[in-house]
């Protein structure tokens, strides 16, 4: 079988020489591990990390992968699957699932039944507790502050007998933030793979009873009606309706946020009420990233209020045109009931119906976690982490370690304690810190390397693919199947020149393509176009009312993009591998979301 380039064969893109310096030594390929690395199969994770990683951002990727692995391997002992090994190659994340040794599987199964069984048995209670834990964690992170070091410590520091001060706090708080981030990611995977396991069990039952049933049909039976991931969009709609109902829409005709707010305040009570309602929605719901949440560079609604404002303006226009923008929850719920009862009626026996109902019941108990965790972790908690890191960046920038607070993301996580030590020492003496002369050239060099890495087009996979993909979570989370690997090897195009991908949301549409590479380009998307992007984020929801269909390079059935597309009833093909490099804006394309096929018609 043909393969992909080996990790050791990948060359450095021009201008990116020395890129390994941007990442921790353990995350990149090395000669000592080359034989192992070349023997494994690695796929690129463009769902979460579509662009070259920034040095500090890589930390959250590493924490995520580590946490996933520890639950599979050390906590729950998922019978066939250990964790995932990862490498950063030219700035991009490559993953390699680690199977459990065949001989260990029976013993692991025993442990798994006991451990996972405890979670399934007590799911609701544990999930309620999880929601408390995650909110406490957010609160804890919000409580961390990074302030410039004072000229003299306040009197209370002395009189309280604390016996320690701001310099030590700065060091400790950074470590505390890192610890919180690690806890966050452990929480994330506390439930996730269990959720998928129960889902897969129902999935497997359906596929046995109805070999031809689509993944979508199964997803629809399980999907929740009220989902936190849609809540930010719901809040936008609510605010748009409020503006219409209270007759203050003309304030939104002004271009910018400040002008609008001024006009709203001038409207007295109604305008004021709207502003405070917006502020209420914003915490927590607008802690929403325009990307996957994994990049410090993605915009967050609450920090870029113009984004939710623009979406609200769009919804106000819709309402004034007489469109119904409400999410038809009753219809969604009735449709879900219809689907379930029709499939149940087609089953062979009452025993089958009982098993079907039991498995569906469990899948529905666990699925809210699968659907909702993304908001709490990647959006809300990450927003807080990025904000705090920028605060810390502000402290270092003020002391001349670098120019902009955001430059801190060009430091590796373990370089920051050194810089803080440097700062603390020099402040205490006082003396001249080394940082202001040491860091700026390093950061400038890293910026140019990073820019060069972003020009590299990552190959979808490395190494020799397995005969068949068996690891259930790889299939669920990343949409990596034997078929998708085969299609990558073929350069994406099939015999008839069409691109293949996952049939993520059914239906067929034809239209003009709009290829965009990130959330900054969202505004370019015109009514009735077909969106083609490396991936989409849930926070792009409001433009889904405009477009006819979606095509992405990466993502599986359960990718966030797929969930939102199904919600909006738009055809979607995900995980095509090559859509953004094959399709050009303005080309006519046909998207067949039922069969996972994209055809360029021009």
């Amino acid at each position, binding site marked *: 079988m043909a393969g992909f380039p080996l990790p050791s064969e990948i060359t450095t893109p021009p201008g990116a020489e020395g890129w390994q310096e941007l990442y921790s030594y353990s995350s990149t390929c090395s000669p000592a591990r080359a034989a192992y690395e070349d023997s494994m199969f690695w796929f690129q994770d463009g769902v979460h990390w579509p662009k070259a990683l920034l040095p500090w951002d890589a930390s959250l990727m590493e924490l995520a992968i580590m946490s996933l692995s520890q639950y599979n391997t050390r906590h729950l002992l*998922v*019978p*066939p*699957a250990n964790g995932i090994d990862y490498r950063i190659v030219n700035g991009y994340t490559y993953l390699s699932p680690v199977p459990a040794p065949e001989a260990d*599987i029976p013993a692991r*199964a025993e442990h*798994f*039944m006991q451990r*996972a069984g405890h979670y*399934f048995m007590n799911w609701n209670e544990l999930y309620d507790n999880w929601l408390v834990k995650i909110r406490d964690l957010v609160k804890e992170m919000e409580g961390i502050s990074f302030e410039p070091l004072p000229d003299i410590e306040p009197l209370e520091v002395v009189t309280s007998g604390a016996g320690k001060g701001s310099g030590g706090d700065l060091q400790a708080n950074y470590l505390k933030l890192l610890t919180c981030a690690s806890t966050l990611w452990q929480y994330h995977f506390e439930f996730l793979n269990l959720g998928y*396991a*129960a889902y*897969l*069990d129902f999935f*497997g*039952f359906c*596929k*046995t*009873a*109805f*070999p*031809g*049933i*689509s*993944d*979508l*049909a199964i997803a*629809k039976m399980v999907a929740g009606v009220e989902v936190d991931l849609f809540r930010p969009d719901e809040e936008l709609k609510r605010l748009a309706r409020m503006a219409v109902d209270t007759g203050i829409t003309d304030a939104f005709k002004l271009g910018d946020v400040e002008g609008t707010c001024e006009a709203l305040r001038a409207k007295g009570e109604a305008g004021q009420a709207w502003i405070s309602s917006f502020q209420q929605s914003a915490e927590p719901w607008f802690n929403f990233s325009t990307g996957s949440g994994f990049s410090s560079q993605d915009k967050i609604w609450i920090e870029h209020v113009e984004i939710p404002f623009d979406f609200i303006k769009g919804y106000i226009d819709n309402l004034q045109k007489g469109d119904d923008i409400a999410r038809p929850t009753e219809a969604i719920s009735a449709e879900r009931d219809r*689907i379930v009862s*029709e*499939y149940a009626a*087609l*089953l*062979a*026996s009452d*025993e*089958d119906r*009982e*098993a*079907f109902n*039991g498995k569906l019941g*469990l899948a529905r108990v666990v699925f809210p976690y699968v659907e909702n965790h993304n908001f709490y972790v990647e959006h809300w908690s990450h927003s807080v982490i990025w904000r705090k890191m920028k605060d810390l960046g502000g402290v270092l920038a003020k002391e001349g370690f670098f120019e902009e607070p955001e430059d801190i993301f060009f430091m590796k996580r373990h370089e920051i304690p050194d810089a803080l030590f440097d700062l603390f020492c020099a402040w205490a003496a006082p003396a001249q810190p080394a940082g202001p002369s040491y860091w700026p050239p390093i950061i400038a060099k890293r910026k140019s390397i990073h820019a060069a890495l972003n020009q590299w087009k990552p190959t979808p996979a490395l190494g020799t693919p397995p005969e*068949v*993909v*068996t690891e*259930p979570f790889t*299939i*669920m989370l990343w949409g990596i*199947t*034997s*078929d*998708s690997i085969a299609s990558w090897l073929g350069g994406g195009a099939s015999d008839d020149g069409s691109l293949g991908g*996952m*049939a993520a949301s*059914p239906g*067929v549409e034809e239209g003009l393509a709009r290829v965009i590479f990130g959330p900054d380009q969202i505004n370019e998307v015109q009514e009735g176009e077909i969106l083609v992007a490396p991936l989409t984020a849930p926070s792009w929801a409001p433009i889904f009312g405009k477009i006819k269909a979606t095509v992405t390079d990466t993502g599986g*059935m359960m990718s966030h993009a797929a969930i939102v597309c199904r919600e909006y009833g738009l055809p979607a093909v995900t995980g095509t591998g090559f859509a953004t490099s094959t399709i050009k804006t303005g080309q006519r394309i046909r998207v067949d979301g*039922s*069969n*996972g096929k994209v055809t360029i018609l021009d």
Partner: protein
Amino acid sequence: MTTTITWFESYWAGMKSEVGGKAASLGEMTGAGLPVPPGFAVTTSAYRRARDESDLDAHIARLLHGLDITDTDMVSERCAKIRQHIATMPIPEGIELQIRGAYLELGARFGMKDVPVAVRSSATSEDSPDASFAGEHDTYLWVRGAEDVIDAVRRCWASLFTDRATCYRVEMGYEHRSVEMCVVIQKMVHPKAAGVAFTLDPTNGDRSQVAIDAAWGFGEGVVAGEVTPDNYRVDKVMLDITKRIVSEKTHEYVLTDHDTVERVETLPERASAPCLTDSEIKAIARLAKTAERHYGCPQDIEWAVDVDLPEGDNIILLQSRPETVWSKKGPITVVAPGQKTGDYMSSIVSTLMSPLYTKGPDGS
């Protein structure tokens, strides 16, 4: 109350004796949302009036007097005379006007003058409703124009007196008056495409799927297996098209200018083009699903997409019969009888290790 004309859509069960088996079934199907080719029935009361207002009974009695049913020559000659008489006898004026009116109305529904119709016999008999010799009664296809329709109606009436039916009644001692004839007049289907559909996947018995085979033109080629048809699977619940294979449909059966069906080579570009649109595929699946619900078991149907009918109403059911192969085996069972269904942990463990996922969520 007696009516001369009954449109399929206004049929109800109480009319069965007035319209005979075939028309009753067409009316019942129309009422159940199974779109047979549109049309109407000329009820038995029309036949009775025509018979009673003429000298038909006396004529029959005279001709059949002393009939020796073992003398085939005699039977053949006398029955032919009766049929000839009926085929030319006058129809009461009111009845003829009603038939003409209904025929014009049928054509007007599709904006067609002289709409081609099938004129079929639908016999009834109080004594033996099933002994109607359905196969022997006449059917006239591609009848155009009111004049020819009236003629065909009379000839259908005449087909009550085929040699065999007549002998049968004589032998059994049934009154010839006891059988009456209703005539069905139905638009001829002029298919853009036609084919068959199963309400299960014939490759594995999956009852969640509708399997459709389709080719250009009339369905003869598909039914006989001489054309490789386009093949579709539609999920019965979601009504999504889950599989599509478009084949090289090298020839097709088309309607000629003189109302015959002829086999022709298909132009290459057309041969490789899908013969159904997505909405037609889904409509056929809905139709198959309705037929299965109506008859209460998996069905094997013949259908056509009629070029004369407006989109949305152009899918026609030609025939529905029980599917036999998989129906005997029963649906796929997952849980063996007596097996416990509550042990979800073992089930989850085996799911995680199941080879089902080796090929990925979307199967094959």
